């Protein structure tokens, strides 16, 4: 277990570095992919709800301290929830319809970005439609594309598990 935790910490540090380097380059109209959310989802799916939410909280709070000037704790809040929800998918990959499985993942992305942008932009009084079209759906699609790319690359490993 300790070895596994160390591996996850290592991956998280590498992704944090990658996010810092390529994040600004991949930003399109203020939307950038969230590689650490992808990691939290994978951890949740693999290790379950307890580990998923703990990983989400630790990664989220680290992101807040390194990359937020206001709303410290917001990433931790939404990442904890995402890790928790992803934990429901543990060992479900071969049990439920694959279509339902991926829809669930997209719903987790949707909840994550909806909460993130709703909290962050609450003072601007942006309409729900604007928030969804301008921020939530583009973030969902952008991060989703990377999620499915990574999932495709490592699909063999997932099937083995």
């Amino acid at each position: 277990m300790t070895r596994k935790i160390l591996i996850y910490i290592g991956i998280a540090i590498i992704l944090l570095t990658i996010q810092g380097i390529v994040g600004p380059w991949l930003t399109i109209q203020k939307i950038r992919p969230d590689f650490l959310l992808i990691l939290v989802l994978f951890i949740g799916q693999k290790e379950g709800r307890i580990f998923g939410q703990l990983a989400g909280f630790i990664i989220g709070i680290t992101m807040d301290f390194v990359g937020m000037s206001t709303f410290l704790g917001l990433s931790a809040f939404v990442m904890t929830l995402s890790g928790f929800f992803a934990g429901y998918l543990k060992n479900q990959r071969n049990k439920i319809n694959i279509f339902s499985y991926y829809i669930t993942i997209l719903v987790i992305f949707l909840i994550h970005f909806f909460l993130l942008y709703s909290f962050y932009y609450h003072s601007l009084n942006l309409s729900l439609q604007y928030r969804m079209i301008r921020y939530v759906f583009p973030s969902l699609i952008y991060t989703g594309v990377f999620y499915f790319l990574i999932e495709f690359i490592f699909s063999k490993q997932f099937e083995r598990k």
Partner: protein
Amino acid sequence: MFTRIYNFVLDYIEYVLLVILLGVASFFISSNENPDVRSLQAHVSSVLRFIHYPAKWLDTLSGLVEENNSLKEQNIQLKLLNVKFKEAWLENQRLNDLMGFADSVKMEIIPVKVLNKGVTPIFNSILLDGGENQGIAAYSAVVTTQGIIGKTVSVSKNSTTVHLINDVNFRMGVRLQKSRHSGVLEPMTDRTGLIMEIPKTTPVEIGEDVLTSGYSDIFPKGFPVGKVEEVREVENSIYKNAVIKFNVNVNTVEEVFVVKRK
């Protein structure tokens, strides 16, 4: 009684843990301005500074950055001087010598490199490659040669988190250079902000310079912020709003200057 509580916690450990973690996250959200939280942020970002080394290394490969620093510092002083000359000229026109325009051009600035432009989907901060060791203090203005970019919020020995001008929570006292109207600038989008409640009788020109008002302890007076891009009339109101385009594109900054607090 305790056994029942213990069993309940064990049975619902996932949910209990979820409530605790969300509670801690909520505590952080509600105590952002707490000095202890800011100090913790400074320590964490200082410890995790090493994750930015690859980006820093890639950046310094060009070798031109260091060479440009002194030139940029000179440039910023000249631009400031230019703004002050404009100010003085307008003031002279109004024959308002009594105001005793303070000579505040001379200010100490610290050149710093941008270490990181955020790791969250929300881009509201940058991390600077310098901190207390370089003489940076919390709540100091951060500028580029074009104008204001933000303010420092948490400072560790060697790194500083900057609250950017385009963050939804950023507010700054500004003044329209020609009409002399002062107001509070609120960010709207990545590159624009809004000055509200300008009396309809106040003439506001498109392209007019917007400067810091000097009413704040953080931002020096007369520093460029942006230009008026649009004037929006408000129906059934005695006020109008002005949309300001920021001079600085925060997405592209690589080196900034921190104005040393006196």
